[in-house]
């Protein structure tokens, strides 16, 4: 069949080899997978899946790929994304129990719903269009309504409050987005092994979504090659963080629950993803080091670490690393197979208690005020126990201070009065200049853009609590702008509290820092925490109101018009003559009406030459009573039937 082409192919073989020589050997695309397991103090277990895919600098991005997902690369090429992070989260990170001062929480504790931020590599004027196109593309890629972030009322351009300083940064979040398996499947599609093989095979949807917290994150950044004429490399980091509750059979309440991978996920790992450069499982135990000796050279000592009086591990770790306050067991899952699946288990023997390191201040946010007209938003920062021990205090002018950045987006229908900003430190109101170091406000414009508030507070180290309150009026939306479930209320996205002088990092002093997970822990990351999402009830109109108004107005107009017309063509003289001639025979309503009209017009009643008015009135009243009863009966029937249905 192909003999036609076959005849000229040999001519080109030579050429193709020449090309190959010219290009030389290139760096290859790399993929690695890792799973970090960590028992939490409140009897839960954290599982953190970490996948990293690196594409080396090349000119063929978006065109030829081996491991790296083509779709992501095309996205980066098309929208000139420099850095981007997209997260889908369900549940709220418990900063008190699950930690707030380690790289894991500062990177993976995300606000509820969808959060997207991106830095673009385009001229300033095109950033907004790039952002809009990117939201649409991501929306299609991840089966989510990220395209709602397109409208300028839903995103903001943070200057310094977000942590990344760039004027080409855009940030937006959708607190109401429901996150479920339809978002996870496209996310998994970006992994070379999807959930068919390797660590990701553990992602059994029912067990993953049963957890207390679930956050799926995609972070990509481009790495400049530095070489002339060569494109930039891309690093794609995908993480999934879940907090699960192991099922316990023990009756002792202070005993930590024992678990294994199969009991947590309902599945076992039957081998690594063959495409991964490294695939490891880590188990991190916190607060375990106080009494144990420092050197673990001997075999017995090492053995003691994973089978001791406190707990038992079901598998022997390949290596053990230690940090100031935690132990890290490393398992290589390459050796596991179908016949011998990797099923790590942890059995506690003695009750054990420890606490996680917390951020210097713990933030909560709430609404104040009542009614549908106005209110106030308050952010409360409370000192945590571990505050004194933390590094990162700044001593300026002989005073010890903690810096805290607050970044908050207000939708335009929450009309914030920035002059009402009040700051209380330890229940005492402070003037702005005392604690407020820097503030950046961009007010909202109705139906055009959302408002943004960035503040840098400098609080004294011995602070117990700090509160910030700001008042707002609730705006009115156009009837078209209400969402389908308007009575539920409107969400104000989470505020971000970050501590610019505090950086979290975990350094296991691992010379083999080839593991991407450990090297990402080693990097100093800004300590940050997100507050709750607020639900603001706005005045919602009765959506059938326009029709009611139309109907009532029309009826009134019709009545007015009809009566005017009747008055215009009325012949009073003739009627009177008629009445006179009919006088003897007319009783009842007509007479009553004529009397009534006469009364209204203020004329003296010409008493009709009538017989006994008593008889007449009795006749009248009986008819009237009948009518009233009829109407009342109809009303009662209506009421009965309408309530019945």
């Amino acid at each position, binding site marked *: *069949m*192909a*003999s*036609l*082409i*076959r*005849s*000229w*192919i040999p001519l*080109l*073989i030579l050429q*193709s*080899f020449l*090309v*190959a020589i010219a*290009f030389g050997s290139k760096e290859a695309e790399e993929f690695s997978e890792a799973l970090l397991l960590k028992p939490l103090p409140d009897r839960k277990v954290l599982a953190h899946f970490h996948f990293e895919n690196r594409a080396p600098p090349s000119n*063929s991005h*978006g*065109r*030829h*790929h*081996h*491991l790296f997902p*083509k*779709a*992501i690369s*095309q*996205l980066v090429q*098309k*929208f000139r994304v420099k850095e981007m992070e997209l997260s889908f989260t369900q549940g709220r990170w418990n900063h008190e129990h699950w930690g707030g001062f380690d790289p894991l929480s500062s990177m993976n504790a995300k606000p509820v719903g969808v959060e997207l931020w991106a830095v673009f590599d385009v001229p300033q004027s095109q950033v907004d269009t790039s952002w809009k196109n990117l939201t*649409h*593309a991501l929306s*299609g*890629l991840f089966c989510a309504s990220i395209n709602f972030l397109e409208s300028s009322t839903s995103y903001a351009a943070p200057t310094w409050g977000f942590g990344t300083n760039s004027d080409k940064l855009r940030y937006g979040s959708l607190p109401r987005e429901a996150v479920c398996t339809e978002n996870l499947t496209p996310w998994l*599609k970006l992994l*070379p*092994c*999807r959930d*068919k*093989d390797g660590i990701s095979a553990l992602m059994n949807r029912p067990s993953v979504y049963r957890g207390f917290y679930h956050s799926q994150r995609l972070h990509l950044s481009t790495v400049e090659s530095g070489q002339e004429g060569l494109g930039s490399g891309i690093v794609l980091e995908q993480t999934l963080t879940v907090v699960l509750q192991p099922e316990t059979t023990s009756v002792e309440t202070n005993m930590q629950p024992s678990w294994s991978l199969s009991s947590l996920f309902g599945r076992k790992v039957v*081998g690594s993803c*063959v*495409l991964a450069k490294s695939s490891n499982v880590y188990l991190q135990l916190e607060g375990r080091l106080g009494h144990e000796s420092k050197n673990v050279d001997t075999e017995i000592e090492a053995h003691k670490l994973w089978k001791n009086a406190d707990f038992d591990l079901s598998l022997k770790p390949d290596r053990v690393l230690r940090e100031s306050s935690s132990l890290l067991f490393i398992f290589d899952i390459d050796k596991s197979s179908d016949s011998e699946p990797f099923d790590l288990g942890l059995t506690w023997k003695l009750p054990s208690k420890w606490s996680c390191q917390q951020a210097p201040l713990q933030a909560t946010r709430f609404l104040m005020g009542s009614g549908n007209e106005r209110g106030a938003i308050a952010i409360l920062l409370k000192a945590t126990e571990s505050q004194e021990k933390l590094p990162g205090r700044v001593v300026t002018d002989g005073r010890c201070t903690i810096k805290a950045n607050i970044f908050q987006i207000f939708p335009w229908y929450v009309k914030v009065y920035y002059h009402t900003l009040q700051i209380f430190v330890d229940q005492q109101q402070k003037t702005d200049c005392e604690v407020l170091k820097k503030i950046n406000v961009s007010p909202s414009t109705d139906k055009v853009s959302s408002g943004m508030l960035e503040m840098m507070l400098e609080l004294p180290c011995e602070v117990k609590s700090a509160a910030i309150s700001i008042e707002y009026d609730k705006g009115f939306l156009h009837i078209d702008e209400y969402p389908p479930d308007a009575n539920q209320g409107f969400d104000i996205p989470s505020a971000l509290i970050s501590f610019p002088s505090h950086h979290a990092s975990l350094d296991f002093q691992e010379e083999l820092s080839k593991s991407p997970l450990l090297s990402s822990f080693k990097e100093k990351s800004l300590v940050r925490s997100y507050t709750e999402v607020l639900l603001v009830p706005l005045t919602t109109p009765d959506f059938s109101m326009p*029709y009611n108004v*139309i*109907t009532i*107005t*029309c*009826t009134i*107009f*019709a009545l007015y018009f*009809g009566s005017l*017309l*009747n008055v*215009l*063509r009325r*012949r*009073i*003289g*003739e009627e009177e003559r008629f009445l006179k001639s009919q006088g003897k025979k007319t009783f009842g309503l007509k007479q009553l009406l004529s009397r009534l009209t006469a009364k209204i017009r203020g004329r003296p009643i010409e008493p009709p030459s009538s017989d006994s008015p008593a008889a007449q009135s009795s006749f009248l009243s009986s008819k009237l009573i009948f009518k009233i009863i009829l109407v009342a009966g109809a009303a009662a029937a209506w009421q009965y039937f309408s309530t019945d249905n």
Partner: protein
Amino acid sequence: MEETSDRLNPTTDTSGVTPEFDPKTMRSTKPGLKRLFITTSVLFSFLLGVPFLWKSVEIYRSPLPFHDIDSLSDQIESTPLRFPCNLHAVFVGFESKDPDNLRSQIQDGINQLTHQSSQCGSCNVSISVTVQNLAEQCLETLAHNPSTCSYRCGVIIRNEFGVGLDDTVDESLNDVFSGCSENSGKTYSVVVVNKENANGEDEVIKAVVGKRRHAWVVGSGLEERYGDIVARVSEIFVKVFMNGGRDEESIHGEFMPVGSDGKIVLSFSLLNSNPRDWVYDWDFQRIDDALLAPVTKALAPIANISVESQVLYHTPKSSFSSWDEKLQSYIFRTSDLPFFVNSNEWHLDTSAGASGRSKILQFVVYIPSGKECPLLLQLPNGEISKTNGFISPMWGGVIVWNPESCDKDSESPIRNTISPQDLEQIVEIFLGQFRQLFGFKSEAIYTSGLGTYKILPSERGFTEWELDVLSRKHTCFNLHSCSTTLGSLSRLVRSLPRMIIKDEIGEQVKYSLKAAKLAQSNASLGGYSSSASSSREARSLAENAFFHPSIMSVSYFSYEHCFAVYSPFFLPVVGHIVLAAFREWKRYRQEKAKYLTWLTRKKTA
């Protein structure tokens, strides 16, 4: 109140003036007109207001040229588009032939071959014949088309022609006919050389079709069999140059895998069915640069082609295969092909940001897993397919590539790269499939009833005359799809009388029709590229109009809604007015009758 007092008068002096005056049946004064006038004027003002109201609730609909759309589709249906083509036949070494006679014979032959198929994209032939006799003197037909190539007499030397490689002959012919002007359609030339019968034996007639637009027939003793030769010349022209040597049945000419923006994305995917058995990778960048770039360059006038590739893992096929003991391999049959592509697991899609409205052709290399290796395709006649692949029109093609050895030696999977030789073979099959998607065959020999023709392949995948065929078909396809799109748009618009149609849509339809007209006129003048580009424009404008966002979200303000809003006002008011006017009119007639009877009574009295 004047009227009432007037009317009171008769009652007061009834008994006095006329004893026969009956107040019940007659009246003495003229009935008044004031009330009648008021009520009728109100009624009329309402009636006058109705058109204004109608106008105010009317929905904006840009006027679409329905008539033009219908006439365009009628025209495309009834008179297929034809391009002017020139055929220049040169007979070398023919002694006693009249060129005009030959011309009419060739014309007859062409008519015979084309009369049954006057499909879109065929040629409007004009023929010129040159006969060069043994003394190297030429006789030419009076060319009614002055722009055809002028053949310089004696350039082709009878006995030296056709010696050597076919490729060099093709090149030399290109030099001979290099003076061709191209402004009124393409010129195809067929050279017939009657050689001296040197050996005395009956030599076989050799017919070759070149890479450009030339063909030649070489043989000896052709003068005697010239009827046969004339038939072959017309056959070369009709079957090869005009129809591209393809079967009419294979793929219908109306399908062209080109997106409406004139782009094709060739998406190559290497599917490792089970990476636990083996993992194969390829160096596609090299293939792209070396082998695919010339093809995309050659096809540039037809479509803007971009190439991308990816490697996917864990992608089992969704049909079953069975073990064949005799062949020592797994077999899948042609009946399984509809189920071979596993749309659940093969996520071949490119990103939404990349494509737009371009056509994506998927080319898939499937590497079977250890459980189904080697995997072979069995044809319906029981043979094993040589290419081990298949195409799906308008979607792309699939090739099953079996690794060298199907034994899994070690526990850990081996990571291999497909060798350049294998990869080139795969690309050969790809190109064959690609040609097939465009409707061309990939055989070097075209056989017809009269004999066989050798077809010289081009390094670029497509020869020039094939590209001509494609460009004609492309114009046709674009115009056809433009007319069907506009036709369905007009049907849709006419079926929904209360749908908003923006001006933008109207403009797009207008421009699309204009571009279609331009394409038709360009085609009839022989401008291949200009007609292709304007037909592409026509098609993309038509699709833009059809897929305009304002049409997709139909804002449908229904009649029911209208009634619900306006009836609470208009029903009671109109009732009042009509009734009042009616009553007043009735009363006026009554009173007038009364007055008339009184008048007659007075007259008689």
